[in-house]
């Protein structure tokens, strides 16, 4: 029996105190769908497990006064799916979150955990990047905000400082004529790890794209914001030339590995294909068709 301690603080301050005091031996428990597997297999041997789900801010899903959303870092995918409004405003983020594992896993797994687990293939991350999500983190030195794409540092690593906890995501208010979408390529039809994952969020005014962001996953050590792809779409009517330029930007951004799920060449080519398909779905949602 390892000497693990389990703490379920009621306030964020208590959680940060306990987490920081335990140093590198502490682990945050949100849904636990990654952590408990890592503990059981001996990859991680935490001295302290800090369960953050008794802190209401960590599990809340709230519409902000300006029409955006604040999502607690430990809110489960199923809680997001059950929210009456979230999926209508951010269907792409929701479909990405609901591609994570089985219904059982979605009952527990959170977007915060998906981000902090640091997998380059985490499905929710490219969709959150496309959405322009800002995260709030809090540590012994107080609160700060980061762009979601600044959080991952590499496989299994984040840019959070020692003792910092991810608190929430804020998704901005939506302009009229906006839509988002997420697609991933996997070798099977369900329940697999992305070979490429791609999120697009865009706004159309009279058929012209006025804003676009593209998040790309599973093709580099971290999920990426592909600014050149968004820039290629802005100002266009999403015509073939603009889409090909954006697809090329995605292919150029890839720095993938070869593994059993896909070769480097396949991942690079697929990134371009997914850009076109995902942009089409986002555009369809933006125009309400």
């Amino acid at each position: 029996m390892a000497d693990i301690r389990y703490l379920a603080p009621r306030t964020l301050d208590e959680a940060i105190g306990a987490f920081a005091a335990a140093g590198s031996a502490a682990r945050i428990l949100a849904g636990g769908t990654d952590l408990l597997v890592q503990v059981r297999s001996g990859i991680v041997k935490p001295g302290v497990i800090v369960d953050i789900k008794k802190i209401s801010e960590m599990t809340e899903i709230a519409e902000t006064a300006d029409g955006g959303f604040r999502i607690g870092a430990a809110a489960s995918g199923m809680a997001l799916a059950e929210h009456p409004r979230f999926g209508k405003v951010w269907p792409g983020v929701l479909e990405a979150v609901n591609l994570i594992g089985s219904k059982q896993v979605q009952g527990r797994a959170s977007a915060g955990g998906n981000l902090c687990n640091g997998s380059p293939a985490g499905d929710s991350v490219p969709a959150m990047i496309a959405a322009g999500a800002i995260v709030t983190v809090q540590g012994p030195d107080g609160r700060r905000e980061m762009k979601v794409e600044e959080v991952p540092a590499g496989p299994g690593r984040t840019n959070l400082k020692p003792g910092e906890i991810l608190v929430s995501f804020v998704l901005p208010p939506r302009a009229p004529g906006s839509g988002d979408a997420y697609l991933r390529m996997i070798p099977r039809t369900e329940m697999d790890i992305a070979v490429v994952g791609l999120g697009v969020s865009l706004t159309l005014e009279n058929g012209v794209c006025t804003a676009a962001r593209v998040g790309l996953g599973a093709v580099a050590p971290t999920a990426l914001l592909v600014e050149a792809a968004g820039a290629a779409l802005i100002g266009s009517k999403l015509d073939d030339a603009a889409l090909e330029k954006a697809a090329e930007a995605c292919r150029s951004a890839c720095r993938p590995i070869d593994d059993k799920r896909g070769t480097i060449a396949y991942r690079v080519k697929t990134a371009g294909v997914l850009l076109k398909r995902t942009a089409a779905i986002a555009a369809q949602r933006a125009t309400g068709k």
Partner: protein
Amino acid sequence: MAKIHVTTTINGEPMEYLCEPDDTMLDALRGPLGLTGSKEGCASGDCGACSITVDDRLVCSCLMLAAEAEGHELRTIEGMADGERLHPLQQKFLEQAALQCGICTSGMLVASDALLRKNPDPSEEEVRFWLAGNLCRCTGYDKIVRAVLDAAAEMREATREAAQ
């Protein structure tokens, strides 16, 4: 290390138990609580044999710490039948031979029940997607999917009759 004292509700009954900090909910169910209907298949959240609901959400009890149950409402396979009277899902699984070795069955039933509580009239595709986290190495799934669809139809019929 002191054990953790947990007070929770399981199948509508208040329950208390002691657990180690790293015990899973499945460990507690099958150990001190003696509820051995939930099975351990993979212990990594892949197979669904340990499925339970926590506050009506379907979860793998192997991916939850026993200490986390404090203050929540859990449902397990043991709460499914009404005394000697089987739940329509259980009855259809039996009638249609939707099980062979039985290891996956309680998880399949708990997951199917969670689906029908949310959606009493699922399509075949919805049933298959919902049960994608429950692995069965015997049946090939067809009989399970048919049993769930037939049980759902029977439950809808019963609801209609009760309303009249």
